[in-house]
């Protein structure tokens, strides 16, 4: 089941193309990483999904039906550039934002109280936002984003501005929301958090989608048949005269990375190495999302 389907959406502004024929589908109950360098078009796409702007071409389906105003209350959005009314009290403001999403005042109050207790910030209720630190304000923003129990949550660089402790709290909350069945779009260019959180990624570069798929499949696809080997001896001279189908990538005192350049299985490599030296450890080098990101962006 797909919670959101983006079908060949294009959007151009007066002087540039922001999104060029991008199609995506966000599976239900998963965390979908929307990756891309700065200015790739992530935010433009997210704004279209939030109905802040309209696409020039293409369609978006939410739970199978064409995206419309009724879906607003099922989507929660935490923009990258986010703020709050500085002069307004925290509780009042959270209540206002929740009501704009379509909650009744009573529902909103009840849900807010729960969240404020969970984050141990009930004493902030009557404080003005300008009295809060940046991290505190971000917590309030997070609460207002998820308060109305949306089916789809969109986080645009959610961790920017959080200290590591608060970032962890938010990360745990995101994972909990996923457990509860919420689908999440997670836009970032910080790859380490993608590795930890995402089930599925799509990479956007220069307005085009250049990569899309479940994270393990993507990694599988980008494997390069490179193996990391840890030898017990430090005499690794034999690595300098490898057979043709093997290539030495790096070497230091007792470790090396070797690439198999034909289709021969890894067991052949192990056998070959064992003939020369003792091996302490042998593992396939799985590319990190960061490496995949840099490689694909550079290739395009």
């Amino acid at each position, binding site marked *: 089941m797909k919670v959101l389907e983006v079908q060949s959406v294009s959007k151009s*502004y*007066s002087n540039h193309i922001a999104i060029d024929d991008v199609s995506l589908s966000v599976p239900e109950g998963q965390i979908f990483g929307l990756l891309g360098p700065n200015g790739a078009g992530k935010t433009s796409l997210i*704004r279209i999904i*939030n*109905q*802040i702007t*309209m696409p*020039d071409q293409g369609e978006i389906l939410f739970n199978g039906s064409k995206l419309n105003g009724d879906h*607003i209350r099922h*989507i929660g*959005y*935490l*923009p990258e*550039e*986010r*703020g*709050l*009314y*500085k*002069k*307004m009290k925290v509780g009042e403001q959270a209540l*206002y*934002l929740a*009501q*704009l*999403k*379509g909650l009744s005042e009573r529902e909103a109050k009840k849900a807010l109280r729960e969240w404020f207790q969970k984050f141990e910030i009930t004493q902030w209720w009557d404080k003005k936002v300008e009295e809060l630190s940046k991290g505190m304000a971000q917590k309030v*923003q997070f609460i*207002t*984003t998820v308060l109305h129990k949306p089916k789809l949550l969109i986080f645009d660089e959610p961790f920017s501005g959080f200290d590591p402790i608060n970032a962890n709290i938010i990360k745990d909350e995101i994972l909990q929301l996923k457990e509860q069945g919420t689908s999440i779009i997670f836009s970032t260019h910080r790859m380490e958090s993608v590795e930890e959180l995402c089930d599925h990624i799509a990479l956007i570069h220069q307005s085009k989608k250049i990569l899309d798929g479940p994270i393990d499949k993507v990694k599988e696809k980008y494997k390069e048949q490179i193996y990391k080997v840890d030898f017990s001896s430090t005499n690794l001279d034999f690595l300098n005269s490898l057979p043709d189908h093997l290539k030495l990538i790096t070497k230091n005192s007792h470790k090396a990375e070797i690439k198999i350049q034909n289709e021969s299985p890894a067991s052949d490599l192990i056998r070959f190495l064992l003939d020369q030296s003792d091996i302490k450890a042998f593992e396939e080098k799985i590319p990190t999302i960061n490496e995949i990101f840099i490689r694909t962006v550079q290739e395009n």
Partner: protein
Amino acid sequence: MNKIILIIKREYLSRVRKKSFIVMTLLGPILMAGLMMTPLLMDTSDSEEREIWVCDESNLFESQFGDVNDTHFEFTNHNIEEVKIDFNESEAFALVHIPKVDSTTIDILESSVRVYTHKPMSFSNQRLISKNIESVVESIKLKEEGLTRELIDRTRAEVELNTIILGESGVEKSGSTEIAMGLSMAGGFLIYIFIFLYGAMVMRGVMEEKTSRIVEIIISSVKPFQLMMGKIIGVAMVGFTQFALWIILTFVISTVATTMLVAPTDVNIAELAQETELITQDLQSESGLTIVLNQLEEMNISFILMMFLFYFVGGYLMYGSLFAAVGAAVDSETDTQQFMMPITIPLIFSFIALQTILENPDSSLAFWCSIIPFTSPIVMMGRLPFDPPMWQIGLSMVLLIIGFIFTSWIAGRIYRVGILMHGQKVSYKILWKWIKQS
């Protein structure tokens, strides 16, 4: 629809609860009342007795100078140099020296009167002295020509015009120029002030949302246009509240202040009115009062009030959305100047035009300004008491509504793009691109 009410509520409450709003609302009437009370207070403070010496070398003027209010005139015909020495040692306020005249030197006198004072002399005192001397000189000249003052007074004529406007249906209406002018000036001025004060408030509100970056969160829940209109309407209600409080408080404060500062026995409605220059001379007699009331009735007060409300709201809404667009287009208050120009110029122009139009309410300038929506709210208010043709009023109203729809459409398009733009130097060319953008 529900959401726009939420927005209006927030915009209204967040402003009305501000300290600055409360302070301004309280301070406004105090300033206003102070302004109205100043003439009264000034008058009482000016009540010290004054003595003015007149050195009249030809003994001609004493009969003309009667004591006025608290100013007492003391006459002498001694040598001016001696009098000057005495004057310097005295407490007298001023010394007027009128040189000796006869029929041959009378023309020279007009420019040879000197006044010596210790302190600068008020304009009204100067007028009083010169007027008295003038009238004596006039009498002397008249006598020389063989005429008497009585004869001149008898030949003087004063005509009061009773203008009557003959309606198309043959109904006669007495024109009431002064009151009409007063009313329409006040109405036009109120609209002008309201647009500026609260239009700027809308602009600042939009800028606050833009710079605090909350706007993206909000427009993921509501349409940008809803947010813009909600803000404009919310601020308008703040304005209505403030105006209403101002009027009530001004009334209360000035009533209380008047009764407290002026002893009840002194209060003479006619005098008060004259001193505060609020009501024209007509009020001094009872018949004058009824004339004013009659004229007000004939001008169809309820019609004018309704029209005032229409142009008040219409003008504000039309300009309000433009103010919102400016707020959305810029990053900081300092950048607003270049975009404020096209908004302020028609407003200031219509306010200036209003004053010339009152002189001639049927001129073509008056016609065009009262039809074009950018100037019509203020100018048509000025023309209304002069009974412009109904079709012109109708046309002006329809055009104002169209103008409002047009400006809010344009403003809405600038707004929804501008509100999410940061760090871009915006020019008119870019604004035009935003308007064209789908």
